[in-house]
């Protein structure tokens, strides 16, 4: 730095004032941001909503070939007890021409990474297109789920086979708590 500029800065009383302005301005900006944040964050899911985010399901009441809908985080989840024929179809189609290729076994994985049981398929009941609830079998040419809204067709593993949905039905995160009960979430 040259002597001249040094002198100019030191000599001007304005520099200190500028510093105070900037410091005060910065402090005010930080303060404003800190004040605004709670007002934004309050809209996020509240503690009690988060607390509701697991659901336990007793599987013993669901017979083979039956499906129940349970509510998890306010959204329906399919708990499906698959028949041997459905399991076979799902495994066979692992190598079919899939839009979102995934093996049936991957779709049964529990949240903790353990393999699931082929009879139990736990899916989020919301069409990956725009979120309608697909119905089971009626309308499906693959023996799985069919979405009435825009005609997405899912197979017995919940994989998208035809229609506008971009992805397979999402698997709900679940673990087996005992042999006959699971916890979702």
């Amino acid at each position, binding site marked *: 730095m040259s002597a001249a500029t040094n002198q100019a800065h030191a000599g001007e009383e304005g520099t200190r004032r500028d510093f105070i302005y900037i410091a005060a301005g910065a402090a005010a900006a930080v303060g404003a941001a800190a004040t605004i944040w709670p007002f934004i964050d309050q*809209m*996020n*899911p*509240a503690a009690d*909503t988060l607390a509701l*985010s697991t659901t336990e399901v007793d599987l013993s009441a669901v017979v083979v070939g039956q499906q129940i*809908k349970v*509510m998890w*985080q*306010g*959204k*329906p989840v399919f708990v499906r007890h698959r028949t041997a024929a459905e399991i076979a179809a799902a*495994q*066979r189609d*692992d*190598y*079919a021409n899939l839009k979102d290729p995934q093996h049936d076994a991957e779709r049964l994985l529990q949240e903790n990474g353990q393999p699931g049981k082929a009879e139990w398929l736990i899916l989020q009941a919301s069409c990956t*297109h*725009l*979120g*309608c*609830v697909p119905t089971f079998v009626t309308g499906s*040419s693959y023996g799985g789920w069919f*979405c*009435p*809204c*825009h*005609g997405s067709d899912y197979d017995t593993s919940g994989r998208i086979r035809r229609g*506008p949905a*971009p992805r397979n039905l999402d698997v709900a995160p679940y673990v087996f708590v005992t042999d006959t009960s699971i916890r979702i979430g």
Partner: protein
Amino acid sequence: MSGPSTYEPKTAFTRWLDKRLPIIRFGYDSFVAYPTPRNLNYWWTFGAILALCLVVQIVSGVVLAMHYVPHVDYAFASVQRIERDVPYGWLIQNMHAVGASMFFLAVYLHMFKGLYYGSYKAPREVLWILGCIIYLLMVATAFLGYSLPWGQMSFWAATVITNLIGALPLVGEGLKNWLMGGFSVDQPTLNRFFSLHYLLPFVIAGVVALHIWALHESGQNNPTGVDVKSKADTVPFTPHATIKDLFAVALFLILFSVFIFYMPDALGHADNFIPANPLQTPPEIVPEWYLLPFYAILRAFDFNIGPIDSKLAGVLAMFASIGILFLLPWLDTSRVRSMRYRPVARQFFLIFVVVCLVLGWCGGQNPANILARSGDFTASLRWVEGGQTTTQDFTAPSEQQFEATAASMRETMAGRGATMTMVSRAGATNATITAVIGGTEQTRNLSAYSVEALEEEIIAAKAEIGAGAPFFVIERNTPMTFTVTNLSQLATLYYFLFFLVILPILGLRETPGRVPDTIAKPVLAKEVA
């Protein structure tokens, strides 16, 4: 524009007040002495109509809020109670629900007027942008309001729209949960939607004030688009514009009343009289009529654009279709304001209006509906009658070689005299091949008007032939089809071309029509002066 104030307080009190708060002067200058072009037509009355609409929505809304309960268990019932039990509740509820439609009807006509007469051009750019902001706020308010009665359509429209926000990359999911206050549309969502639905109309009122301020600064445009040259080209707002506006308002109120009293639910969807049920989706989800064009644009994107998947592309296009209006003052390069003197642009404008209506129609249809096709959907079923069926399991050396192995298996079978073969895969490398040896090959051709009908025919044919055939080889042929989605795609293309290509280029190339001297020159002003 308005020039110096001509207000003269007459009484002692008004003189006293004028020195302290010149509010009467303000009102006088803005709504009495304010000079309006003398050639305004009835398209210019929608401003007053819109102001009335806002007042109607706020007054009826505040009353509804006295009886409405924003809770998932009571919301639906509370609206029914308003309609049935609250004194005159039926009237006020109908006013509010029909009022929203009337508001949009008026705002669309108001916007088309602005487009036609070039009211967005200098010096009215800010005025136009404020109008676009009002429109955007109206869309948000109506969407929030529509979820409040908590019927099936309310619930599922809210679900579909919040899911769209989830399509945004990275932030989408978080933003969606932030908006819903949970992981699905539920109590927190309804509660905050009510709060915001109450708030936004007052924000709109604030922006309307800015809109009018900007208007009074730049002055009104007029059907010729030629600037007002002198005082002789204008008349005072009161009584001229006031009475004309009131007359238009009266006509508008007649239409409004026809809906309120004779067909209050004609503009709504019947499914919204079923209480919301998160476990069951209605057979079709459609927004209110005034949002259908945007819904059509959203659904026109059934293909991915490079890394952008179809859902996100639709969302972006939908927002862009409103966003582009903000840029219009700079996209239209023509220096002529009114389309009266733009013979070519006027044709494109008319097509644009039709395209908007077509988009609205498409938004209400099932997107897969076929409007035209080159022929029938056909299929040929081939099978072998008689002959001997053999099956054989085989295993390919690796997953990659599966296809090659299957092909060689087919050849082997053909070598053994197979008339027809079928491979069904059982795993990564293992499969079964079925072949019919001998017998006679049969063919049947089917045709139908749609994929579904064709599949039904195939199933029927299979059942009829039944055990006579060990398996079928089916070849399907799809004709060229033109669906509702294709029509939406064409219309969407025109919508964007109009703003991004036609208006910018046309403005530079078009030869404007001649403005008659009687308009271009202030003939009247000279005579008067």
